[in-house]
């Protein structure tokens, strides 16, 4: 066992991730040398993950309020009002590093963690998303990571019983050494049955629930090196293993328990489980907490206080219960065969006391643990804006048909069916739009309402221009929600960046947050929760800056939605939005012209809002038969996706615009949508759009078996489908 009275050396302090000045702060705060357990507690509370010490200053600038916001950042998940006394509870979180080490378990426990964040608040999870970034397809580790991560997400979510309805997958060499696994969960609760982590009342039982504590994840640092451990092998840091079966029981038990009125406060145990959960409950409630670790259910013998306080064992919760309901609460947990143990009490002394074998191993001021965490204003550099790429400097493809086939079969644009078919996207019976469209839609159980969910970011845009890229990510989510007919309500963000101690990387983070904030402001799309993952670097090379944005939208009548599939021959195809032929940072530029340069397409936020609001009105009036926004790959790829989804062709003429044809067809202009409308509606829809000042042009009609751009290309939709569907299974060695 690790002894608590071990000498605190500078090496140990560094090992636990505390900088010398941070350690000095600890000494100043408590006026003595900390015990090992105390040092562990500080290292957990003050690390980047818990304290947001590098990003907090900038996160504060994000818009977090709005008429629908019930609870913004700071709790386990954000909460927005969805009417009829119901709220949506959602959040996204990264599990990047664990997934790189052990892709199946890393991804699985990532899903488990985010589900817990949502049901801790009293909500029943109803949808999950996942945003994944992997290295180059030909990098030796990539295939293994893809296989493991996807299986892990499915393995956990499917068993738990939440439909995984969407996500993103990108490949880029800059993720060779650091894959990204961002998991999102959405739950629904009654507004008057939401639970928070703030404890209230002195002398109340603090109860531990769920799975037993092991050494999982303890000592991610080199803590277990020989000089501390008599038995190095025993103390080896271990990978967390997820148990969706226990999590599912924990969900049901929590829901039953919450219904009994026994719960005063509840907090799931995520990173640095017992430490963060206990401190948070106490500090938020202006209370002290006393924990007796001897009462904590353990799965291994001889665990030290240090190990128990830092264990990241999964599927555990901490609650403060009303004493008179304790027996009823215990009965619920026994029914579900879960551990239930009173491990402490709330106190009135604002201290965090931890006892082990009758000895006090930690005694710290509870509020200061959080409040006094260091906050940095790290130096950051203003990044240079890339020069705008003139479209006419990029060659036209030799063969448009070939170029289209090549694009839709490219790793970043091909069908993700191989991925989502491993996810149960139907469980719960409320899935209205499945993966494959702009946003997924689930019906709110027992109502006519729907919630749409989507996650987006285009890292190559953010890399080229972090501010525009941050804006674009928010705009794209907003647009994808709009494209299915939903009113975008709010977002959660997951900011994945490199080492913030480098001014360039910090500059990316700052600029991206500014862009995100600007877009949220104009689109009235507040941030209600989020997560920051920094230090995604290997051998000095950082990932592409990847601020993933997930958003939710509301459909008052879930039947009034639009999908991307072309449904009826003879429908007229319209383009709404201004097409400029923007090729900078486009997939065409990278895949066909072999270049990655220029600035990303700028987002005109006012136009974005105007176009989207107009289109949503039309969808809700039932006047649109299909809708798809233009994103990666441009207009032609968007139309091909609509044709493939509907298994029918389309015939258009070249769009009008000032740029060369290939730029109009493959440019990635923002704020644009392709619409299909019944022929007899076409004139009226055009008039309605014009009336709302939305640029609109008629492109052609739906029908036939080929995708045709007159005078330019004609490709059978079947050929498109084969190309689109083949890359992933072939890459995974299945065909």
């Amino acid at each position, binding site marked *: 066992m690790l002894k608590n009275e071990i000498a605190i050396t500078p090496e140990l302090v560094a090992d636990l991730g505390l900088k010398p000045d941070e350690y000095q702060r600890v000494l100043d705060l408590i006026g003595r040398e900390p015990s090992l357990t105390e040092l562990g507690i500080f290292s957990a509370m003050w690390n980047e993950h818990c304290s947001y010490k590098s990003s907090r200053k900038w996160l504060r600038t994000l818009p977090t309020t709005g008429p629908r916001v019930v609870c913004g950042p700071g709790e386990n998940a954000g909460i927005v009002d969805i009417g009829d006394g119901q709220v949506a509870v959602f959040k996204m979180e990264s599990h990047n590093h664990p997934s790189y080490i052990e892709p199946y378990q890393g991804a699985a426990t990532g899903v488990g963690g985010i589900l817990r964040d949502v049901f801790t608040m009293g909500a029943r999870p109803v949808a999950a998303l996942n945003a994944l970034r992997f290295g180059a397809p030909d990098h030796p580790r990539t295939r293994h990571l893809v296989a493991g991560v996807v299986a892990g997400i499915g393995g956990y979510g499917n068993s738990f019983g939440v439909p995984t309805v969407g996500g993103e997958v990108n490949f880029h060499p800059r993720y060779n050494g650091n894959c990204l696994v961002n998991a999102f969960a959405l739950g629904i609760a009654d507004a008057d049955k939401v639970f928070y982590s703030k404890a209230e009342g002195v002398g109340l039982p603090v109860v531990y629930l769920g799975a037993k504590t092991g050494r999982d994840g303890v000592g991610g640092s080199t803590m277990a090196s020989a000089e501390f451990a008599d038995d190095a092998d025993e103390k*080896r840091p*271990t990978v967390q293993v997820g148990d969706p079966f226990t999590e599912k029981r924990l969900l049901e038990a929590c829901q039953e328990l919450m219904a009994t009125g026994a719960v005063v406060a509840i907090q799931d145990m995520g990173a640095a489980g017992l430490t963060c959960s206990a401190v948070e409950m106490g500090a938020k409630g202006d209370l002290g907490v006393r924990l007796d670790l001897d009462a904590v259910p353990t799965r291994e013998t001889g665990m030290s206080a240090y190990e128990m306080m830092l264990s990241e064992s999964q599927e555990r919760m901490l609650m403060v219960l009303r004493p008179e309901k304790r027996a009823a609460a215990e009965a619920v947990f026994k029914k579900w065969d879960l551990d239930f143990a009173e491990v402490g009490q709330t106190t009135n002394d604002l201290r965090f006391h931890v006892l082990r074998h009758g000895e006090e191993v930690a005694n710290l001021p509870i509020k200061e643990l959080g409040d006094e965490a260091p906050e940095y204003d790290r130096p950051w550099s203003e990044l240079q804006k890339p020069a705008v790429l003139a479209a006419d400097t990029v060659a036209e493809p030799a063969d448009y048909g070939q170029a289209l086939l090549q694009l839709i079969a490219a790793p970043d644009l091909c069908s993700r069916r191989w991925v989502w078919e491993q996810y149960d996207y139907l469980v719960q019976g409320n899935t209205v739009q499945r993966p494959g469209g702009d946003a997924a839609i689930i019906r709110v159980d027992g109502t006519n309402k729907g919630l749409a969910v989507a996650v987006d970011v285009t890292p190559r845009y953010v890399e080229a221009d972090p501010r525009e890229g941050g804006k674009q990510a928010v705009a794209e989510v907003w647009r994808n929600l709009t494209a299915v007919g939903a009113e975008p309500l709010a977002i959660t963000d997951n900011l994945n960046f490199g080492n913030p101690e480098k001014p360039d990387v910090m500059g990316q983070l700052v600029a991206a947050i500014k862009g995100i904030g600007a877009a949220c402001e104009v689109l009235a799309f507040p941030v209600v929760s989020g997560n920051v993952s920094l230090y995604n670097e290997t051998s000095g090379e950082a990932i592409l800056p990847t601020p993933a944005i997930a958003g939710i939208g509301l459909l008052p009548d879930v039947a009034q939605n639009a999908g991307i599939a072309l449904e009826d021959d003879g429908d007229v195809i319209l383009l709404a939005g201004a097409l400029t032929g923007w090729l900078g940072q486009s997939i065409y530029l990278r895949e066909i012209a072999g270049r990655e340069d220029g600035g990303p397409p700028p987002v005109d936020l006012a136009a974005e809002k105007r176009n989207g609001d107009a289109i949503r009105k039309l969808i809700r009036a039932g006047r649109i038969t299909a809708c798809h926004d233009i994103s990666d790959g441009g207009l032609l790829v968007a139309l091909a996706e609509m044709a493939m989804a509907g298994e029918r062709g389309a015939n258009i003429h070249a769009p009008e615009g000032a740029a060369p044809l290939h730029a109009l067809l493959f440019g990635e202009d923002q704020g644009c949508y392709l619409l299909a409308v019944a022929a007899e509606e076409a004139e009226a829809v055009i008039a309605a759009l014009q009336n709302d000042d939305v640029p609109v042009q008629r492109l052609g009609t739906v029908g036939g078996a080929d995708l045709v751009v007159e005078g330019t290309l004609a490709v059978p939709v079947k050929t498109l489908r084969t190309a689109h569907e083949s890359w992933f299974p072939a890459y995974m060695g299945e065909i």
Partner: protein
Amino acid sequence: MKARIIVTLKQSVLDPQGQAIEGALAALGFDGVGSVRQGKIIDIELSDPADAETRLNAMCEKLLANTVIEDYRVEMVE
């Protein structure tokens, strides 16, 4: 020739599967069952006995065992 590879979870790694089996045995009335851990065996036939042990170890490292959480042992059967 035949070999058997035995893959087990490392001691400190959680074994949800073993736990569920433990619970089920107790529910079925089997008393005194302590810890249950599940692992797997992989029986392999090799056409060429040369370097069998080395090759089998390589197979374990590369594919058959997830050495982040599992230990393995190679046994020659015949």
